[in-house]
C-alpha cells in the first residue's frame, strides 16, 4: 500500500471509530474522508477480494443478505455492506472497517446502487454481477428504465470478464449483446399460453423490433417467459429455474428450484426471485443445493425485515411501499393470508416518499374488496388521495375509516376488529409509525 493510501486508510478508520463510538453511526463520512486523501483508495482496499456486485431496482438488500448466507456455507469471513450504504462512499467505509482475515482471497458481496456500479468498477474488477430487475421507481420516474440499465452497463463495460447472473424473466436483461459470460435464472412453473402484460406495465417493447412483447406466462409485472410474435426474440434458456411453487403464505414460501425443495421464511413471489438469485450465485460459487437449503433454513433472521409487531395484542405487520411494482407484490402477498385482517394504507408525499402520488393509481387495489378484510383505515398527509383510491377500487364505505393523523391511527389499532393488521406505508409514514411504536415500547429503537 502506498504512503498516501496508508494515511487515507488511517484517517478513514479513525473517523469511523470516532463516529461509531461517539455518534453511533456515520456510514459514509469515513469513506468521504478517505477518498479525499486518496482517490484510488478502493483499489487498494479491495485488491485481494473476490467481489460480487448486486444491483437492480427492487430486492437488492434481501438478495445481498441471502447471498451472504448461502456463501457462508462454503466461505468464511464474507464482507458485505449494510443496508443503505450502497453508494461509493458507503462501500469504501465497508472495506475500511473490514476485519482482517486469513483468507488469501476473501469474498465481498456488495449491494450497489445502479448509478454507482461504475464508481465501483473503476477500481474493482468483480468476479460476478447480479441483476435483480429494473422497474420504474416512483422516486425518479422521469428517469427511464433504459437509462437505468445503461448506467449499470457503463459500469459493467469496465469488467468484461465478470460473469453476469441475471434475472432471465426480465426482457431488458437480454436486450444488449455483452462480452461477459451470462447465467440466467427465472421461473418455469406455469402452463404456457399467449398473453400480454396488463396495460399499466412498463418495459414491454421488444428490444429488437419495438413491437409489443407477448408472454407464455407472467410471474409478475413484466417478468415472465416473454417472446416477440413479430421477430421471434425470446427469453434466453434458463440455467437455473424455479419449477414449482408449492405453498405461499404472507410469512413463508415453499417452492422447488430444479426439483430441490426449498422453504423461505418470508412471503411474496418477489422474494422467491431474491432467493433464486442467491441460489444461483451459490451454484456459481460451488455451493450445493443441499447447503443452500440449509442456509435458508438457518438464516431465518435475515427475513426479519417484515417482523410482526405486537401492539396491545394485535399482530401488526408494517410494510414499506414505494413503487407500483412493489406495492402490487405486497397486495399479492397479503392476499395469501387465510385469516381475516385489517388493512391500513398510509400515504405521505415528502421527498423521501416521492412527491408525486400518482403511482397509487397503478396499484392493484381492486383486489382488496375480494379479500377477507374486516376494516380499512386510510391516513397520512395525502389521506384524500389514498382514501379516494380505495373508494374507486370498490371498498365498502361502511368498513372504511379515515384518519389523517398518524398518531391517532396508532391509537385505533387496538380497536381493530381482527387480530391481524397489515399496514402499508410510504417511507416517512413508516418512520413515523416506527417512532411511535418505539416510544410505546412495542419495538426496540425507532430507526433502522
Amino acid at each position, binding site marked *: 500500500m502506498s504512503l498516501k493510501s496508508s494515511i487515507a486508510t488511517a484517517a478513514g478508520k479513525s473517523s469511523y471509530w470516532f463516529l461509531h463510538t461517539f455518534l453511533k453511526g456515520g456510514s459514509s463520512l469515513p469513506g468521504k474522508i478517505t477518498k479525499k486523501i486518496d482517490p484510488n483508495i478502493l483499489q487498494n482496499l479491495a485488491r485481494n477480494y473476490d467481489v460480487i456486485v448486486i444491483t437492480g431496482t427492487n430486492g437488492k438488500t434481501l438478495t445481498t443478505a441471502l447471498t451472504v448466507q448461502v456463501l457462508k456455507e462454503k466461505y468464511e469471513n464474507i464482507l458485505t455492506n449494510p443496508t443503505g450504504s450502497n453508494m461509493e462512499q458507503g462501500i469504501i467505509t465497508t472495506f475500511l472497517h473490514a476485519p482482517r482475515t486469513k483468507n488469501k482471497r476473501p469474498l465481498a458481496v456488495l449491494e450497489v446502487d445502479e448509478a454507482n456500479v461504475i464508481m465501483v468498477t473503476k477500481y474493482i474488477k468483480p468476479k460476478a454481477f447480479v441483476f435483480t430487475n429494473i422497474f420504474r421507481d416512483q422516486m425518479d420516474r422521469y428517469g*427511464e428504465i433504459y437509462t437505468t440499465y445503461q448506467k449499470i452497463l457503463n459500469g459493467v463495460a469496465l469488467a468484461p470478464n465478470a460473469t453476469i447472473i441475471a434475472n432471465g424473466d426480465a426482457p431488458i436483461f437480454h436486450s444488449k449483446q455483452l462480452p461477459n459470460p451470462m447465467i440466467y435464472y427465472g421461473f418455469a412453473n406455469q402452463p404456457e399460453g399467449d398473453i400480454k402484460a396488463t*396495460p399499466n406495465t412498463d418495459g414491454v*417493447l421488444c428490444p429488437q423490433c419495438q413491437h409489443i412483447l407477448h408472454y407464455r406466462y407472467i410471474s409478475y409485472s413484466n417478468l415472465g417467459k416473454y417472446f416477440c410474435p413479430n421477430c421471434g426474440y425470446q427469453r434466453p434458456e434458463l440455467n437455473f429455474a424455479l419449477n414449482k411453487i408449492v405453498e405461499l403464505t404472507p410469512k413463508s414460501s415453499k417452492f422447488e428450484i430444479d426439483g430441490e425443495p426449498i422453504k423461505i421464511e418470508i412471503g411474496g413471489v418477489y422474494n422467491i426471485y431474491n432467493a433464486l438469485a442467491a441460489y444461483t450465485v451459490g451454484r456459481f460459487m460451488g455451493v450445493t443445493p443441499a447447503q443452500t437449503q440449509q442456509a435458508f433454513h438457518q438464516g431465518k433472521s435475515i427475513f426479519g425485515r417484515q417482523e410482526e409487531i405486537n401492539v396491545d395484542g394485535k399482530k401488526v405487520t408494517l410494510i414499506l411501499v414505494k413503487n407500483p411494482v412493489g406495492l402490487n407484490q405486497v397486495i399479492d402477498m397479503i392476499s395469501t393470508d387465510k385469516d381475516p385482517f385489517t388493512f391500513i394504507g398510509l400515504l405521505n408525499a415528502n421527498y423521501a416518499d416521492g412527491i408525486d402520488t400518482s403511482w397509487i393509481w397503478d396499484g392493484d387495489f381492486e383486489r382488496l374488496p375480494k379479500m377477507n378484510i374486516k376494516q380499512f383505515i386510510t391516513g397520512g398527509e395525502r389521506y384524500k388521495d389514498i382514501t379516494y383510491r380505495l373508494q374507486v377500487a370498490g371498498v365498502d364505505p361502511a368498513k372504511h375509516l379515515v384518519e389523517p393523523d398518524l398518531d391517532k391511527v396508532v391509537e385505533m389499532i387496538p380497536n381493530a376488529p381482527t387480530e391481524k393488521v397489515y399496514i402499508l406505508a410510504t417511507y416517512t409514514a413508516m418512520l413515523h409509525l416506527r417512532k411511535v411504536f418505539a416510544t410505546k415500547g412495542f419495538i426496540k429503537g425507532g430507526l433502522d
Partner: protein
Amino acid sequence: MAYTLNVCHLYGDLMNTYGDLGNILVLNYLAEKMGVELTSEVISLDQAFDPDKYDIIVFGGGQDFEQSIVSKDIQTKKAGLTDFIEDNGSVVAICGGYQLLGHYYIGANGEKLLGIGALDHYTDKQKDHRFIGNVVIENEETGEQYHGFENHQGITFLGQDERPLGKVLEGHGNNGQDKTEGAIYKNVYCTYFHGPILARNNQIAKHVLINALKRKYPDADISKQEQLKVAETF
C-alpha cells in the same frame, strides 16, 4: 334507458407512466354512479383506430423511448383520430399524449418528432430543466379550480383555436411563460397534470362523460346524470 360509452385507451400499454390507468378507473366509477355502462379497450401499435367505435379516448404520458415509437405509429391513425376530434369526440390527453395531438415535440436527443397536428399546438424542450411540482389552475369559463402534479421537460405553446384548460395560479403550466396550462379544443381536454387528472378533479371527469353522452344520445334526457354531485378528492 340504458347508456353505454366505449373508451379507447390509446397506446395504454406504452403511454402509462403516471398512473394514467387511474383516469379510466375514475371514469368507470363515475359512469356507474350515473347509470352508464363503460367499456374500455387498449388500441396500440399496428392496430387500426376506428372513430365510429368509441365515445371517449384516453391518451396518457409515456417514457421518451416509448413516446418516440408511438410518434411513428400514430401517423397511421392520424385520419381517424382527427375525424373523431372534429366530430366532437371526447378526449383526455396527458403529457406525451397531449404533445402528440399537436404538430410536433422535441425528443430526448433533440430530434423533432411528429405529432398528428389534430390540435394547433407545438412543443419545444427546456434545456436540462424540468418543471416538477404541484400545480393549481383556474378555468376561466367555469371558475373551477383544478389540482395536479406536473413533471415535464417539454414546453408547449397553444394555437389560435385552443383555449387553456386553466390559468396557472401555482406551478408552471404549459411553458412557464404565458400562465396557461393544458388545452381545450372542442371536446378535447389536454394537460400536463398527473395525479391522475381525473382522480384529483372529478369535475373534469364529469364534463367528459356528459359531453360524450350528449354526443351519443342527442335526444335523451340526461338531466339526472348532469345532476350527479362529485366529491372533492383533493
